[in-house]
């Protein structure tokens, strides 16, 4: 087994044809890479997925912090709408939200603006918005758990130093809450990475979309599925490593176990 594997590796030249022949040795048909159109669409798919992730994660985090602040606010004027939003977003499927936003809401906006040509929002915008806000709702709940875990004595101490409500949130509650909520937040981020694949339903050219376009054309589902699974596994593995690293780095002495997680 090891011998044949080695033979394959040393015999396969590092060219496109070599890669295709190498895969063929294992019964996998990657000949679509020879078609410039499909190859470009596929490579562009990887890039678009990475861009989508890079844009959606900050949007979700910013939204999550804002929502968490509102959720824990004393004023019902802030907490009630935030609670409503979180429940609505969390309790409905992301795909349904996306289709409603893109095929429904977007059309209404176009009509109001007098034609689709004047509507600045495209499918990409709606994917970032819907997936980002979906993630934000989950972040908000994770952060709320963190904020509520901050001991009251700390809040009191801050108040006695003359901190206002917003200052307490910014300098006392959020830094503590963030540390406590980190595992949950990274859990959400891993989910967001996977959720970006709903973009394929509204023809945003990310990697799942590109793969579907190719495999419905060539019927090579298994080949592309293997690459898809490996690609998303790699991204999420890297993401959780960042999470572990942050957990270690931001560890509060005296809070939680000494050897965190790893």
């Amino acid at each position, binding site marked *: 087994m090891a011998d044949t594997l080695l033979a394959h590796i040393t015999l396969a030249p590092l060219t496109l044809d070599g890669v295709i022949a190498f895969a063929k040795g294992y019964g996998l048909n990657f000949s679509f890479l020879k078609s410039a159109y499909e190859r470009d669409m596929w490579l562009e798919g990887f890039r678009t997925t990475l861009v989508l992730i890079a844009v959606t994660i900050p949007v979700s985090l910013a939204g999550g912090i804002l929502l968490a602040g509102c959720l824990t606010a004393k004023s019902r004027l802030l907490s009630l709408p935030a609670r409503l939003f979180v429940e609505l977003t969390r309790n409905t499927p992301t795909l349904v939200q996306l289709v409603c936003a893109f095929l429904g809401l*977007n*059309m209404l906006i*176009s009509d109001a603006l007098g*034609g689709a040509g004047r509507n600045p929002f495209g499918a990409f915008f709606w994917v970032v918005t819907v997936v980002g806000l979906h993630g934000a709702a989950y972040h908000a709940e994770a952060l709320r758990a963190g904020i509520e875990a901050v001991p009251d004595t700390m809040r009191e101490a801050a108040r006695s130093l003359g901190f206002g409500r917003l200052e307490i949130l910014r300098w006392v509650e959020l830094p503590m809450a963030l540390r406590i909520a980190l595992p949950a937040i990274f859990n959400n981020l891993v989910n967001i990475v996977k959720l970006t694949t709903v973009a*394929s339903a*509204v023809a945003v050219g990310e990697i799942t979309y590109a793969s*579907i376009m190719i495999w419905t054309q060539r019927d090579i*589902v298994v080949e592309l*599925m293997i690459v898809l699974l490996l690609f998303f596994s790699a991204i999420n593995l890297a993401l959780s490593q960042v999470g572990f690293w942050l957990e270690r780095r931001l560890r509060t002495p005296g809070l939680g176990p000494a050897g965190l997680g790893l």
Partner: protein
Amino acid sequence: MNLFRLAAAASLAALMSGAIAGAAQADATLDRIKQRGSLVAGVILSGAPFGYIDAKSQEQKGFNIDLATELARGLGVKLETVTVTPPNRVQFLQQGKVDLLIANMSWTEERAEMLDFVPTAFERSGGIALGRKGTPVKDWPDLKGKTVCLSQGANFTKPLAEEIGAKIKGFPSQPDSLLALKGGQCDAAVHTGATLRVMLLDHPEDWKDYEILTPTDLLPSLNVIWVRKGETDAREALDGIMRRLHGSGWIIDAAERNRLAVTPYFLETRDANKGR
């Protein structure tokens, strides 16, 4: 997500059973159909005239269903249908969940390498472009640089992108693509002529601002029945039935019944198979 999930589940199952890339199967379909007493046909129900669910009776209707019924009758067995979609249809066939596909799947060289097909096709058609009235697009070359919505898996994708130079947006199904057209996400939607023409006839109010932009069909191709690779017995038996259906005029009757335009292809194939 539904389509994608199905495809994912199907392909993972294929992966686990080691059935990579259509592993050879014993030529046992015909025996199994007879033993089981039923023909399991994978059909697409994406809209009239080929296949749809009747709003009143909730029954499957359309040309695909009529043809499948007639094939089962020809083999002397009952018919069972399984609804498939472009992303999962080949997996369903390769894993033996269906005996054959009548699934708007035209003949291409790549598919013929992986699957076997019944040589006598049931229909020949191409794509037409639907767009807003008054657009400058008057023929296929005018779509260069324009955005075109279509269904994922449509075989018009390649010629539109590579030869005409259109920007492609593929949606999970024809209804999604048409909604995107109405939402202004594309300059035209390209789908099989037979389905678009029937839709315009059935819903004139919904489509009063739209018209068919192209005078000719794009990439007319043969719509064939697909079976697993190497299933010669089943293919031969089905081909015999198909030739009889053409020759007796049954295919033309079924086309007319389902409002599928009777093209010269139907007449030629009938004449070629007369007396069978």
